């Protein structure tokens, strides 16, 4: 079902990511290991957003809230001495899922601009909550003394942590591919195309869209847990609305309604940020018009530029 061209692109992408640690070690440039791990972590968050944004047509402008909840789910237990990764990451997934359930239940009653704004509002509420809780560092945030402790995997070792994140990303892409083509994915995609018709043929679409919303929140919570381990630090600013904007930019820049697109978008956005800010302090004056150009001309995002990406359901 996957066209030959796209299979090549996928394989090439995987190889590039898989070989980065070795190249970084060879060039004695450990910095690139951290940079690409950060890209992969944001790629996981972007893919989770694309599930509801690209496939489901739900324009959530508050997806960074789950990034923050996942981050807190690692840093707070660690603060109280619970350093087991299994406990923290499960808590991250469950807490974000619970939050997404509440936010989704209210937000999915609205559509269009109201949906965009209400999701943004909920994320801002979590942001202000985070700032005002002094016990957990408030706006200054909190240091993560030790990274999540996983059985047999020492995350303090940058390369081990890198491959853990790579494994999660690849697993997510594979599971995402299965999901998107299974019955559940078909309902989500069709609901985006024509919700009235879906209801007329017998689907109560609300429960499926809410399920997708919760699923996306949970996966983004996991990305939040990884992000705290990546930066060894927790800050409520992970939940600020501009962060939600950045994740949306990654999805759209990469190519909505595809699984690989957001990964490309995350890589492009973060590399551009790193490269451009090295060139000039006013790097945003380049990034701004670039985003406008992408929206106007590269309609299907960077993914649309790649060979073999003709098949829409990427």
């Amino acid at each position, binding site marked *: 079902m996957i066209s030959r061209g796209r299979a090549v692109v996928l394989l090439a992408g995987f190889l590039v990511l898989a070989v980065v640690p070795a190249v970084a070690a060879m*060039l004695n*440039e*450990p*910095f690139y290991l*951290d*940079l690409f791990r*950060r890209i992969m972590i944001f790629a996981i968050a972007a893919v989770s957003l694309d599930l509801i944004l690209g496939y489901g047509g739900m324009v959530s402008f508050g997806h960074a809230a789950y990034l923050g909840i996942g981050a807190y789910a690692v840093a707070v237990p660690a603060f109280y001495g619970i350093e087991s990764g299994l406990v923290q990451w499960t808590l991250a997934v469950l807490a974000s899922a619970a939050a997404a359930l509440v936010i989704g239940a209210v937000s999915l009653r609205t559509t269009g601009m109201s949906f965009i704004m209400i999701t943004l509002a909920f994320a801002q509420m979590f942001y*202000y909550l985070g*700032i*005002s809780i*002094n016990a957990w*560092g*408030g*706006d*200054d*945030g*909190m*240091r993560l003394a030790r990274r999540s402790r996983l059985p047999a995997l020492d995350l303090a070792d940058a390369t081990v942590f890198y491959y853990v994140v790579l494994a999660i990303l690849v697993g997510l892409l594979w599971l995402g591919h299965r999901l998107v083509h299974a019955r559940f994915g078909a309902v989500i995609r069709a609901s985006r195309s024509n919700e009235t018709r879906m209801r007329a043929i017998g689907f109560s679409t609300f429960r499926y869209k809410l399920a997708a919303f919760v699923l996306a929140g949970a996966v983004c919570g996991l990305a939040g847990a990884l*992000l705290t381990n*990546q*930066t*060894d*630090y927790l*800050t409520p*600013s*992970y939940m600020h609305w501009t962060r939600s904007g950045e994740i949306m930019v990654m999805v759209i820049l990469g190519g909505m309604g595809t699984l690989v697109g957001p990964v490309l978008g995350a*890589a*492009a956005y973060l*590399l*551009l940020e*790193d*490269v451009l*800010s*090295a060139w000039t*302090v*006013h*790097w*945003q004056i380049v990034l701004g018009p*670039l985003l406008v*150009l*992408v929206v106007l*001309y*590269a309609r299907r995002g*960077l993914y649309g*530029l790649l060979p073999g990406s003709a098949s829409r359901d990427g």
Partner: protein
Amino acid sequence: MRTPRIAVVLLLIAGCLASQARAAETLKIGFITTLSGPQGVIGKHMKDSVELALDHLGRKVGGLETEVTYGDDQAKPDVGKQVADEMLKKHRVNFVAGVIWSSVLLAVAPTVTASGTFMIDTNAGAHEFAGKQCHELFFATSWQNDQTPEAMGKHMQDQGVTDVYVLAPNYAAGKDMVTGFKRFFKNRIVDEVYTKFGQQDYQAEISQIRAANPKAVFVFYPGGMGIQFVKQYVQAGLREQYPLYSVYTVDEVTLPALGDAALGSWETRYWSPDLKNEANAKYVGDFRKKFGYTPSYYGAQSYDGILLIDSAVRAVKGDLSNKKGMIAAMSRADFRSTRGKFTYNTNHFPIQNFYLLKAVKGGSGEVEMQIQKTVFENHKDAYYQECPMK
């Protein structure tokens, strides 16, 4: 419609290949501050001061060929951490300096010191690093956050001021400031109000102040918040009724935007452009000549940071591997600091004087801060006992 697409892809590839050329034995300093966004103005003050320090040292710090790499943390802790990683692992700097915000410092400093690199903190005075998390490679050329409000608290206590109305933004630094203030101010506080971080309109709070009718008002509103609060405070006619005492609110960064609205405001600091000492006169004079605006304490601290590094490298005659020697040299703080003579406490935070300043009409018709009197002589921060280093 082909060309724009190709441009996007090429830009991406170019990004991946940018790498750093290897340099001969040079002293490499990584300076992290906020250069973009609204707070970028503070970063500019710091960057200009570092450049001036390099000029005064003939571009050779500690007698070595020097390479300063500036990093923009965008006032975000995780971006700051990534910039620090890039400096440590890619540029392999010997010193990391700068950092404005406590949240960025909390994310960056542990990684820097853990990698065996010096952290020269030229602003954020987070109490964690003065206390439990102090480190032999960590030196601050600014102050510990609480010291400045402590000085204001002491001054107002000495003046017998009472019935004070206290306002600050609802975030960690805001609460630190009020804690520090109350460490020395024991009289009656009418009310303690925390406002939304980044709030623009303070008319509601101003009406509450007028209703409470206090004897004085103490506030902490840095940057843009300070400009808005002070302007609206004066526009509401409160300046005449209730004297305004503040910390980190009326300074050389906000004065250009405040103008006459700042007249009559009281601040406390360890430094001021009119501080009488030879090093400061040279720094402020040359700064005004080169950049055309008055430097702020953000700048003075960064200038001192470079001189501190210079004194350390010179003491070990350029042997950058001799960290113990450099630590000992820096602990003596024997360089001509813009704040005059000072000594380091055991937690590598300065022990220094604090002065009362007032915003007055300067000779040039501009409003400027002038020292009125000394509040503290050789004042120590309140956390150094918690620091294991002795």
